[in-house]
């Protein structure tokens, strides 16, 4: 991994609270993952930037509550999930398909879980965003967390309030639902 000074020279200044606290290093290591989760959770880059900023500020303020029982990444994810959920509730935003419509996604069970082919990579990010927005929040969050190779199924289970076995079971359905929705965005 490149030195912090090479990646974020302005962020590594040690003579400030930012630098002295060591928080600059925390940000450098986890910013991409936290911003990405917020972006795909909220679906809007500006709101995601605001959310990521607020998540890191909350983390800084609450650092003394971090007991080290989980990894820093997991702890930051938990703050992000709670923060984004609160934002969505306050905005009265809803996913396109609620849990009550889960039968819709069960119909995707025939979807092939084979490779996902993307012909235009330059537009792929937008397709992924549209696909995730079309999924129930539970599936969206599950896929985003499992995609982070730093997290075990147990940790994903803790973050989503379920067992690791439940994660495995729902993940299978979430993958199929994603593949079905992704195909529709082509």
């Amino acid at each position, binding site marked *: 991994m490149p030195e912090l000074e090479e990646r*974020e020279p*302005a*962020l590594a200044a040690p003579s*400030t*609270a*930012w630098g*002295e*606290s*060591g*928080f*600059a*290093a*925390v*940000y450098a290591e986890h*910013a*991409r*993952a*936290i*911003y*990405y989760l917020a*972006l795909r959770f909220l679906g809007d*880059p500006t709101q995601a*930037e605001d959310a*990521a*900023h607020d998540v*890191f*500020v909350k983390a*800084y*303020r609450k*650092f*003394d509550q*971090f007991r*080290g029982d989980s990894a*820093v990444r997991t702890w930051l994810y938990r703050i992000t999930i709670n923060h984004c959920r609160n934002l969505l509730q306050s905005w009265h935003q809803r996913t396109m398909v609620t849990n009550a419509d889960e039968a819709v996604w069960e119909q995707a069970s025939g979807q092939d879980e084979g*490779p*996902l*082919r*993307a*012909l*235009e*990579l*330059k537009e*792929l*990010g937008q397709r*992924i965003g549209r696909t995730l927005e079309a999924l129930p929040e539970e599936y969206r969050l599950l*896929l*985003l967390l*499992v*995609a982070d*190779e730093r997290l075990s199924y147990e940790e994903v289970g803790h973050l989503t309030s379920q067992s690791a076995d439940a994660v495995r079971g729902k993940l299978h359905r*979430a*993958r199929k639902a*994603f*593949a079905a929705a992704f195909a529709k965005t082509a």
Partner: protein
Amino acid sequence: MEPKPSVTRLTQKQSAVEQTLPAQSAITNSNARDFNSVEELLRWDTDQTPPPPTLGARLRRTINREPRPARSWWARILGRGQSDS
């Protein structure tokens, strides 16, 4: 990271096609790619999605206005900081 098998196959297939139909296939297939799983696709997307440059600077300004913590994050995480008192 090593390319996944299907990606390698696609690249080889593309090369063969492009040798026979260089102009058209270069346009239609130059960016094509297979992803073996949703997770792989999302990891690729994460790699392509850096946080905005303004985020770090903005956060730094905010943190520098905050009261300084009693001891650093890393000292706490690594268990080598000062006492909790």
